[in-house]
């Protein structure tokens, strides 16, 4: 791709502005021709200008500047001092940071894997001849359109130690009450269910759309060959869904590794993520450093590391899922 040094279709453009004046139309004056030349050449830039201007100021500049900030000991009060990569070096041996990395990945894995599997199953169920199709589609998607803080609050209350409905239900089958916030695993599970509740329906619809694009003859042929529904699902549907699966895996990675609101509200708005940081995510840790302790330099370094991690994990995801194709 790259720059188009000479736009190829000047030919077409000339054809549109007829150089030979016809009898019933007045010849374009020099002024008009100039105006339309300007219109063709310049107006595209005018249309993309608002995007690029706003984006340069509020998007591109902050992202680049984050790296510059991360090279400083930069605090709200007390000015700034260039320290090179020292923030990064500090980060590498920061136990609290690594704790947040482990938490983020823990929650990411135990939320994303079931989420995508459930979505796959639900999409397969929806991809049949159904009564009330739209009702079911809207039904699975409705969690996505709820206010995010509201969901986190409702779930936190459902997971309450003393009056929570989850503990009450568990009590019915003889499980003693769990203090969901107290441990790593229990808090990770609670937060994962919030994420899954919200996003499973979205992934379901992505899969459903991909399933509907699979030619039905494939299934009919397989059925004639005596393949069971289950076999058809694993041998035809899943392999052909690979692009959709890659897409949802990458979207889930980007979202999951930036998890913030759910764990924050689960812990009543505290950036610490529980008494021992058992559910503090990377983004919460960045926020805590940058906007509670006003260590901008250190916070910026966390942001960059987070960014690199997201890219790496996305690439790994992509490679793993692509590898599945060649083996199956």
């Amino acid at each position, binding site marked *: 791709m790259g720059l188009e040094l000479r736009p190829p279709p000047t030919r077409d453009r000339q054809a549109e502005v007829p150089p030979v004046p016809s009898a019933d139309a007045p010849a374009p004056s020099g002024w008009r021709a100039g105006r339309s030349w300007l219109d063709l050449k310049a107006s595209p830039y005018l249309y993309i200008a608002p995007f690029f201007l706003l984006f340069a100021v509020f998007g591109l500049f902050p992202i680049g500047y984050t790296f510059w900030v991360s090279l400083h000991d930069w605090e709200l009060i007390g000015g700034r001092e260039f320290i090179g990569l020292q923030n990064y070096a500090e980060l590498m041996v920061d136990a609290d940071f690594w704790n947040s990395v482990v938490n983020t990945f823990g929650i990411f894995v135990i939320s994303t894997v079931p989420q995508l599997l459930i979505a796959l199953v639900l999409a397969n169920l929806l991809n049949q*001849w159904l009564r009330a199709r739209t009702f079911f589609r809207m039904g699975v998607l409705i969690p996505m*359109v709820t206010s995010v803080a509201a969901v986190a609050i409702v779930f936190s209350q459902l997971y309450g130690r003393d009056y929570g409905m989850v503990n009450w239900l568990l009590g019915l089958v003889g499980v003693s009450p769990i203090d969901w916030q107290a441990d790593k695993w229990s808090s990770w599970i609670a937060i994962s269910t919030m994420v899954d509740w919200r996003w499973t329906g979205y992934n379901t619809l992505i899969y459903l759309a991909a399933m509907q694009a699979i030619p039905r003859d494939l299934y009919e042929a397989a059925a004639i060959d005596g393949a069971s529904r289950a076999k058809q699902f694993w041998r035809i549907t899943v392999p052909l869904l690979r692009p959709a699966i890659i897409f949802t895996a990458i979207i889930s990675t980007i979202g999951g590794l930036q998890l913030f609101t759910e764990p924050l509200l689960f812990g009543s708005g505290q950036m610490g993520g529980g008494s021992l940081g058992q559910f503090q995510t990377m983004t919460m840790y960045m926020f805590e450093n940058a906007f509670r302790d006003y260590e901008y330099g250190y916070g910026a370094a966390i942001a960059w590391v987070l960014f690199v991690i997201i890219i790496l994990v996305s690439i790994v995801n992509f490679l793993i899922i692509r590898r599945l194709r060649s083996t199956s």
Partner: protein
Amino acid sequence: MSAIGTGPRPLTLARPGSAQRRPPRGSGALWRASPLTYVTLIATVALSVFPIYRMLVVATRTNDVVGDVPPPLLPGGNLPENFGRLFATEPAHFARGLTNSALASSVVALSVMLFSSLAGFAFAKLRFRGRNALLLVILGTMMVPVQMGIIPLYMVMVKLHWTGQLQAVIVPFLVTGFGVFMMRQYASQAVPDELIDAARVDGASTIRIYWHVVLPALRPAMAVLGLFTFMQTWNEFMWPLVVLNPDNPTVQLSLNQLNSAYFTDYTLLFTGTLISTVPLLIIFALFGRQIIGGIMEGALKA
């Protein structure tokens, strides 16, 4: 929901005929849903709706019943009183939060629709130097997480003296790379080149072509983009938390304020969650099929 059974129109485009609506002859068992399927799906929908229903139940009751065993399953009659208490709760500034969120979400959605359609049209249908390179830049930005630039963005806001003010959660989000890309994809296929050429032969300027030819063709995709942007802005949490103050909040910050109180007043909190969710539910009830269509058509895929 009068929509039941008819399905969103654009979705059937991919498959000719009414294959989805009628069980295929001769191979009914292959595609017809079993009762177990219905049971599973109904259970799923029930799980999806339950937390929202729970908001309604708690929001219509008093604090006494919150710890009741078994938990109450039906709404009570206390909603008006909880409403009154909520809006009177000083530190939450709930009315302010609601109007702020409504204003910010509307402005951002309209702006994203306008600027994305303009730029998307240019990228899809106009030829200019550097077009592909600039499009790549936009694609690249879509990969970058929001948090990346949040610290310098905050510094910019401090410089502009915008901290604590509503424009701080509006202006940085007036354009999105995602919107431009989505409009570009849609314009490429929805607007035939012949139509544009014909308009040019008739002497229409580019802006007239945008207004009279492109905009009408883009309308369905713009609506979906606008709805998504509205919901996204409504739900934005981290950036408002950084840049706004509790006395001039968005609705999400009002909820956070209620949630962080030392003594949690659950009915009040749940009334807040209910009110913050209702506008989104209304949008979903009105435009749910378009939203589903947008997701499924892949227009919303990156």
